[in-house]
């Protein structure tokens, strides 16, 4: 373990901006993709169900 305290951990030896900037954007990008995947699936199901009703009429 390299860290004496939490503030030491967040500082990353003066490179905090670069290290946390990397991890934060990666995390956001992954979360965004997961949301889009779920949204895409539910939208597709909705659309296909609607089309199906239409075709039956």
């Amino acid at each position, binding site marked *: 373990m*390299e860290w004496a305290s939490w503030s030491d951990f967040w500082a990353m030896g003066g490179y905090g901006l670069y290290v946390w900037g*990397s991890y934060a954007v990666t995390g956001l*990008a992954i979360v965004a993709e997961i949301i889009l995947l779920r949204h895409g699936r539910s939208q597709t199901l909705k659309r296909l169900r609607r089309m199906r009703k239409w075709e039956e009429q």
Partner: protein
Amino acid sequence: MAFNLYYYASPATFYGLAGRLIPWFAWGAGILTLIGLYIGFFMAPTDFQQGEAYRVIFIHVPAAWMGMFIYLVMAFWSAIGLAFKTRLSFMMARALAPTGALFTFIALWTGALWGKPMWGAWWVWDARLTSTLILLFLYVGIMALWAAIDDRQRGDKAGALLTLVGVVNVPIIYFSVQWWNTLHQGASIKPSGTSMDEIMLAGMLVMAFAAWFYAIAAALVRVRTLILERERHTDWVKAILES
């Protein structure tokens, strides 16, 4: 009973199989990420040259690997699709592209944030960086091509051709650090062995497996949506829609 590959090549059976596999890969990715981050931040030592800045490596390298690897897998499915006209192959290619683009973007972004403190520049027109940017443009170009062509079969073919033409870029990225004099450091892991500290290497590999699991889960979710859309006139999809 022997494992029958053709059985799973049918969209209907693959849909079910993918649905059962997704939670395993998703949970696997989550758990591996936690382990990888723990190793990366609490076990791996400070680098003697780069201080703490090197800790970007735990996402940068796995993301760059995935960006290249997903492209190769896409090219594989594109070739199979063109050669055998299998329906599922083109869907796999389409399902992989956004995640490949995402990882390539992450590799470039984290590279910029690593380059600034180490090289003094966010970006340089170096062979490794430029060829990786071209990879991102290829992904975006292929997705734009799919989006632009309404006819599904023509779109599949055009996208597959562009993917196969672009595949030359992958070895260029990989060997760029050897072929050209570049600012980007050379490979730390080679067939002949590694120049990395063992625990740093362990953290990086665990994160690489996490990225792999994540990419598989994401592609499977996407391919299932594509299967539903393309097979909507079949009885089994109708049954799903009515449930």
